[in-house]
């Protein structure tokens, strides 16, 4: 339901005009027909009330500039993660050990490209442009999930990514299906359905390996050992160091804190690991009867920060591959644009000719 629609006759989404949009912070230039302060006074209370009532904010509704900017950043980085996240898995497409697994993996990587497309579209409803967001990814001005800076060294990594990485993503994303911004929430519903499917496939892949030959079992254990801690880092810094959390929770972009979601994930994974016949690489992992949850060891936040800063094992490689694909594809995009323009011109000429007759 939309309750915050400003009574402007314009068809343009608020904030989609020049000089606003993607990075418009609280200091963005005032926009016609009302300056930002007046608009905030006029529509701010309705916005707050809509958020408080769990109603969805839609693209043409008024929203605070900082809300818009936070969403653009978060959705774009989510989209970037899907795109960069294709690389570690695509690394195994040509080597998948059975045709069934190859088909599953190809379909998964295709889904990820599709998720990237939905998410860029969701970001575009906020006045950002895909080209601009890609440019920010390529120039390192926007981030993607730190997890994709780890290498896929064996086939079992494909399973560990499905089980742990997609599992962590789902834990993070299911609450986003109730996010206050409508287009993002709806994108998440579609994304989460497919991600759950991927996660089950990853789990099943690991189960097959774990119950397979000794070498396969060892391969599965090694992958889980390498992916466990980076997966826990996917929930972001601890609550007391998370810069955007409080505001995002107030706006109902986020519904739970990083640490809450991380705990939920650990509680889900421990029994699953047991069912898989694999161990988790944490000597401090133990059941806390009083709290009804699993206590776990300390995360290496120095490693997390290093990876975020660009010093993880694959940061350079991932970004270089993405940039190279984009640069090497430039002539293709130029050709498509030139062809479209020529076709349009031809259609226009034909239409004029028809009218002249």
């Amino acid at each position: 339901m939309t309750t915050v629609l400003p009574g402007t006759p314009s068809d343009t989404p608020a904030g989609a005009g020049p000089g606003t949009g993607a990075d418009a912070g609280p200091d963005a230039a005032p926009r016609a027909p009302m300056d930002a302060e007046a608009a905030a006074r006029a529509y701010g209370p309705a916005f707050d009330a809509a958020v408080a009532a769990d109603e969805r904010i839609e693209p043409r509704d008024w929203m605070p500039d900082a809300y818009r900017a936070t969403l653009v950043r978060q959705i774009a980085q989510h989209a970037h993660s899907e795109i960069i996240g294709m690389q570690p898995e695509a690394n195994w497409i040509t080597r998948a050990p059975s045709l069934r697994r190859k088909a599953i993996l190809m379909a998964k990587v295709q889904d990820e490209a599709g998720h990237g497309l939905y998410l860029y579209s969701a970001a575009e409803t906020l006045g950002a442009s895909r080209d601009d967001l890609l440019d920010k990814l390529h120039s390192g001005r926007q981030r993607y999930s730190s997890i994709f800076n780890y290498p896929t060294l064996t086939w079992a990594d494909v399973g560990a990514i499905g089980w742990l990485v997609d599992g962590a993503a789902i834990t993070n994303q299911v609450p986003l299906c109730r996010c206050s911004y409508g287009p993002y929430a709806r994108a998440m519903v579609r994304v989460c359905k497919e991600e759950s499917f991927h996660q089950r496939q990853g789990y099943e892949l690991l189960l097959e390996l774990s119950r397979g030959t000794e070498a396969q079992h060892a391969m599965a254990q090694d992958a889980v050992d390498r992916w466990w801690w980076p997966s826990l880092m996917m929930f972001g810094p601890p609550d007391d160091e998370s810069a955007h959390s409080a505001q995002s929770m107030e706006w109902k972009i986020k519904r739970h804190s990083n640490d809450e979601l991380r705990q939920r994930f650990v509680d889900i994974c421990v029994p699953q690991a047991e069912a898989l016949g694999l161990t988790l690489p944490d000597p401090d992992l133990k059941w806390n009867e009083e709290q009804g949850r699993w206590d776990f060891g300390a995360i290496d936040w120095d490693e997390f920060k290093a990876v975020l800063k660009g010093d993880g094992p694959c940061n350079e490689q991932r970004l270089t591959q993405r940039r190279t694909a984009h640069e090497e594809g430039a002539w293709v995009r130029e050709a498509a644009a030139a062809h479209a323009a020529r076709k349009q011109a031809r259609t226009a000429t034909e239409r004029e000719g028809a009218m002249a007759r």
Partner: protein
Amino acid sequence: MPEPEPGTLAAAELALADDALVLSQRLGQWAGHAPVLEEEVALANIALDLLGQARTLYSGLGDEDALAFLREERAFRNCQLVEQPNGDFAATIVRQLFFSTYQELLYGQLTTHPLATKAVREVAYHRDHAEHWTLRLGDGTTESHDRTQRAVDGLWRHTGELFQPLPELDVDWSALRADWDTRVADVLTRATLRVPEGAQGHGWKAGGGRQGLHTESFGRLLAEMQHLHRSHPGATW
């Protein structure tokens, strides 16, 4: 691995399955490297359709994984066109135009074959995708036009082989060839590209894939595809 007797229907089906698997493998190499996001989706989609076709055919002949992972280069019966390296986007698109036009016409004639009804719709989509890109690239910029013409000229020599009859398939091969020539020439012309002369073109006339004689890059394609499966004999995945 027992081989189907040459000249049987099984041998023909194996050749079609190998075509689909090998092209799927080539397209799989594009994942994460495509020029636009939409093409990541499209190329993976085509690769997946082809892999599905290969699996359907292999399963009718024996164990799909044994057929894909345990045969060596000389036992593969795919045409040489599908094993050609991806090259640039133009080369991939032209290879796709040549092959999907062939597949659409071939499957169109195999109306009673169990694979054909489902696959013919898939390959029509592949052909449509390749045709649209050929038009965009041929009739795009000077650079895209030149790259596409080079791809057409380079791959043309591998097209004659497509029309070597596969015995026991209910196909009118000369009609297939005539239709293919007409359709491909039509697309190339509309794309402002020059049609190379003759169905097999100038220079060395390629062919031999159907007899297990392949080009040099094919061995590496198989080495990559098969290494993990072969490293764990008897394992299931």
